[in-house]
């Protein structure tokens, strides 16, 4: 496919070839046909005159005392001869089949008369060689009836082919000239038409090339032919999406810089207080340490989000056991749960394979479990379930925290909308959603109630199954 893309086919060449080649072929075939028909007509006409000559000679046959006599005036031959440069020969065989008159070396007729003929006579036309030339021959059986005489005389008349060939050649050249002119006209017209038809394409190309990379405004569709409108429409749609994405990214960079500046500002104040002696050194340093940890978490989360967004084909996904990932993340976060004395439960008994990047699934699980641990009061319960349902691999994190308020709900997955401005980075759920979507799945956060009493929050991620590899 890459090869085909490297050598794109030219629309112009395609159109020109598609118009000119069939027309040229048709014209050539037509010329051949016309030439053949013309040649046939010439042959027929000349054959008729040959037959007329033979008949004329036949008329001159006379019976005299039981024998055949011919009295061929020289003028009779001149009639045939005078008109053109071709030479005529004749030969007459008598009733006994023996040479009677004319050119004795003209080859005797030995062929079979055709059963059917276009002429009302016993005549046969054929080609033969005579005196080193190709001749057209008419052989006519002429009935002769007289006193005591009844029979057939054979009259052969031959004519050299020069005239016919000359005529045919002239006809051929004439035909070729006319057809060549026709083809030339077709090529010129097709070229002009194709060029004009493709003009808007070149215009569009010029317009797109001339654009600066900052100009994402729609390409004008006015004056474009109907066929190009959907192309331009698609380009404009892409530009709209790119613009929206750039907008999001600009917003993110603005927000991120602001978010990073906040801990730095805090740090600066804390350091100043410490240096000036307004605050005691050790507690100040402890505060600064906490502030730095906050900045580190933020930077790590931003990196994680960028990494999820920038996964490309060169880093192909593999089959990962979601249960195993959940187990490892739970082990990693166990100190936090131990510190809060949380009653933790993991339900991930059987392997649940999904296709993805292990580190992404780890980020997803870690963020959700981390949120659950943070929201849940000490000695309450947090649980992590991994299972397979009919269509999905399901990861469910349950906490016993305060759940989500309506306002939190409205901006749930937006970056930097943290419910804990002093702790969270505000990116955790954005990462979770990005990972879920990347893997073709979904994420939902819903408050859990029993008898109208809020029990906590359920974070449920559904991912497509991996085709069974076990």
């Amino acid at each position, binding site marked *: 496919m890459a090869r085909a893309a490297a050598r794109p086919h030219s629309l112009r060449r395609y159109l020109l070839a598609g118009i000119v080649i069939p027309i040229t072929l048709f014209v050539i075939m037509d010329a051949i046909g016309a030439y053949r028909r013309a040649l046939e007509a010439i042959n027929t006409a000349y054959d008729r005159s040959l037959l007329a000559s033979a008949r004329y000679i036949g008329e001159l046959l006379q019976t005299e005392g039981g024998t055949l006599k011919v009295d061929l005036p020289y003028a009779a031959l001149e009639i045939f001869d005078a008109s053109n440069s071709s030479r005529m020969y004749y030969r007459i065989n008598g009733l006994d089949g023996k040479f009677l008159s004319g050119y004795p070396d003209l080859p005797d007729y030995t062929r079979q008369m055709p059963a059917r003929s276009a002429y009302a006579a016993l005549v046969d036309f054929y080609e033969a060689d005579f005196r080193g030339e190709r001749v057209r021959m008419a052989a006519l059986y002429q009935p002769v009836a007289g006193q005591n005489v009844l029979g057939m005389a054979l009259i052969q008349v031959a004519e050299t082919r020069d005239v016919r060939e000359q005529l045919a050649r002239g006809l051929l050249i004439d035909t070729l000239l006319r057809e060549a002119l026709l083809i030339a006209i077709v090529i010129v017209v097709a070229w002009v038409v194709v060029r004009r038809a493709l003009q808007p394409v070149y215009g569009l190309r010029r317009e797109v090339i001339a654009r600066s990379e900052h100009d994402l405004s729609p390409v004008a569709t006015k004056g474009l032919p109907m066929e190009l409108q959907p192309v331009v429409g698609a380009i404009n749609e892409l530009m709209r999406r790119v613009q929206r994405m750039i907008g999001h990214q600009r917003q993110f960079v603005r927000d991120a810089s602001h978010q990073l500046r906040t801990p730095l500002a805090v740090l600066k104040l804390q350091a100043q207080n410490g240096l000036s002696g307004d605050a005691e050194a050790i507690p100040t340093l402890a505060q600064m340490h906490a502030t730095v940890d906050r900045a580190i978490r933020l930077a790590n989360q931003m990196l994680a989000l960028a990494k999820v967004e920038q996964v490309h084909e060169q880093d192909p996904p593999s089959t990962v056991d979601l249960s195993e990932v959940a187990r490892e993340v739970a*082990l990693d976060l*166990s100190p936090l749960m131990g510190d809060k004395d949380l009653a933790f439960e*993991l339900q991930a008994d059987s392997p649940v394979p999904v296709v993805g990047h292990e580190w992404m699934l780890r980020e997803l699980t870690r963020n959700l479990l981390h949120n659950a641990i943070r929201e849940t009061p000490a000695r309450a319960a947090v649980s992590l379930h991994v299972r397979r349902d009919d269509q999905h691999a399901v990861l469910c994190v349950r906490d016993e925290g305060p759940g989500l308020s309506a306002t939190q709900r409205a901006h749930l997955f937006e970056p930097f909308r943290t419910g804990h401005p002093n702790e969270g980075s505000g990116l955790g759920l954005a990462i979770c959603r990005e990972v879920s979507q990347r893997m073709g799945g979904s994420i939902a956060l819903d408050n859990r109630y029993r008898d109208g009493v809020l029990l906590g929050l359920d974070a449920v991620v559904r991912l497509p199954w991996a085709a069974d590899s076990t």
Partner: protein
Amino acid sequence: MNLLLVEDDEAMAQAIQIALERRGFDVTRCAHGSEALMRLRHQPPDAALLDLTLPGMDGLQVLHKARADGIDVPIMVLTARGAVGDRVLGLNAGADDYLPKPFDLDELEARIRAMLRRRGGQDEEATLTCGPLTLERNSGAFYLSARPLDVTPREQALLKALIARPGHAVAKEKLFRVVFPMETDIQFEAIEVVAYRLRKKLAGSGVSLITMRGLGYLLRSDPA
């Protein structure tokens, strides 16, 4: 213990040096890749900490060349890049360990000691503690507030595995292998019985054994 610290950020290098010298290491600093390679060749330290982004020759190149020259000083890569790809690259290039920046100084020390232990095997601490609970490594005996704790061999194996990482859960499967080595006909749940007895022995002592259902167990000193 001689450490070569290859780091071009002055403030970072200084902070690491102060911390590690306080913890008993001799630290030599160097800010250039080529200089680092020369030192590794001519005055090989006991271990080296190597930043990846360096002027002149970058850390990965230093690592490649050093290993190609047959220098087998244990080397830990320190970097702010932190991506999985860099980590694999570093370890493939012959690094012994990889620590992404920013890191905790205690973590750094622990990783350096672990790295040296893996290579040399001498720098092992004699005791492990978690709150009032102490394990004497040589004898394998446990002490609770300096008094010997009476434990069965299975309880001892469980406790040993847990005290190696206090505050951190250890997976049930791993504990099962440690507590019931080579036994195939024992129910998986038997580990719960051992943990239950041990928890009773530790009750009220200031250190607790916490169950993480479906996951494993965790040993933790109770907050004061």
